């Protein structure tokens, strides 16, 4: 059972970091299926906690070949763009979202879609909480569609990425979710 987001935000940054629920490779290998039948309105997903450092930002810039200096050149960020520090990439946050949804739906579900906004500047030193909460569920075409509210909050409660998502979970005893994913006709 994951800790409630509301309770997590009462903690210090160090205490939040200690509550990181990002799974290990072995946990992902052996993950048991969450079925459509198991989820309920208000259910919270495991919290993924991140503590980005300049090295993490540089590694992301290099991986995707994003050379914008605001992400790795502190002098440029402070003095040219007048930012508070180097900035965490929106593209990194955007790439955490499908990972977070994938992990929740493994091994047999599907992370179908998500939409979100980028609102706050995130910097090294922030402790970030990727979170999700079930807001609705509907069975269609033998598949379990689950709506989520998602976001990435800072340790002091600022929501940097408010959004929504829809994932597909198998119904217990039902048919497997097709791969590649094909949504049912409305």
């Amino acid at each position, binding site marked *: 059972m994951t800790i409630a987001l509301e309770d997590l935000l009462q903690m210090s940054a160090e205490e939040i970091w200690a509550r990181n629920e990002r799974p290990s490779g072995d946990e992902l*290998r052996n993950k048991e299926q969450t079925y459509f039948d198991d989820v309920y309105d208000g259910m919270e997903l495991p919290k993924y906690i*991140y503590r980005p450092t300049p090295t993490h930002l540089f590694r992301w810039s290099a991986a995707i*070949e994003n050379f914008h200096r605001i992400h790795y050149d502190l002098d440029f960020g402070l003095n040219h763009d007048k930012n508070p520090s180097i900035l965490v990439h929106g593209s990194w946050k955007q790439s955490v979202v*499908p*990972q977070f949804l994938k992990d929740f739906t493994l091994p047999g579900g599907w992370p179908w879609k*998500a*939409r979100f906004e980028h609102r706050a500047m995130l910097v090294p030193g922030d402790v970030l909480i990727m979170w999700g909460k079930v807001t609705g569920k509907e069975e269609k075409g033998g598949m379990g569609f689950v709506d989520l509210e998602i976001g990435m909050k800072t340790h002091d409660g600022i929501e940097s990425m408010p959004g929504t998502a829809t994932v597909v979970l198998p119904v217990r005893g039902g048919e497997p979710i097709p791969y*590649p*994913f094909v949504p049912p006709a409305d």
Partner: protein
Amino acid sequence: MTQETQSALTPEVQAMIGVTGEVVEGWGIVDEEYLRRFTQAVMDPDPRYWDHEFAASTKFGEVITPPIMVSYMSSRIRPDQEDPITRAFEENPMSDGIGRVSRPGSLPPVPTNLVRVLNAGNELEIYKYPSIGDKIFFQNRYSDIRERVGRDGRPFLIITSETTYKNQKDELLCITRASSIRR
């Protein structure tokens, strides 16, 4: 809307909705080394990304890749074009590191005098994980342009660009949408 505040959604702007770029083949292929760097940078240790034997036993039947990893392949600087980074710093040692570059498949600019650009959000639709060895084909389209009025009474535009990614078998991989505010 008062007479002084003319609509930003002019017929010329409206005509951009649905404008579609050419289908472009991304540079290179989806390869294991790019996959390793990407998944380590996003901090996803899933063995489905590297353990072929295990991945073959999953519903996917093979090693998978993060769905939007391929979206960054479309922004690679191709070696058969002038290097915009080199040029940017030759022109201006204080360049922001992006440089001005026209990428294949780019959409024509929306004809508006609203020049300030803000990120309004992103959407993802995922259908299939790209496979190792895939060639990636992408196509951009203006999927929506809307007008809103700010608190200052001035109109602004929300422009949504959609990119569709397919593989060499014409299988749909994912669709991304990026919305920007033009003030």
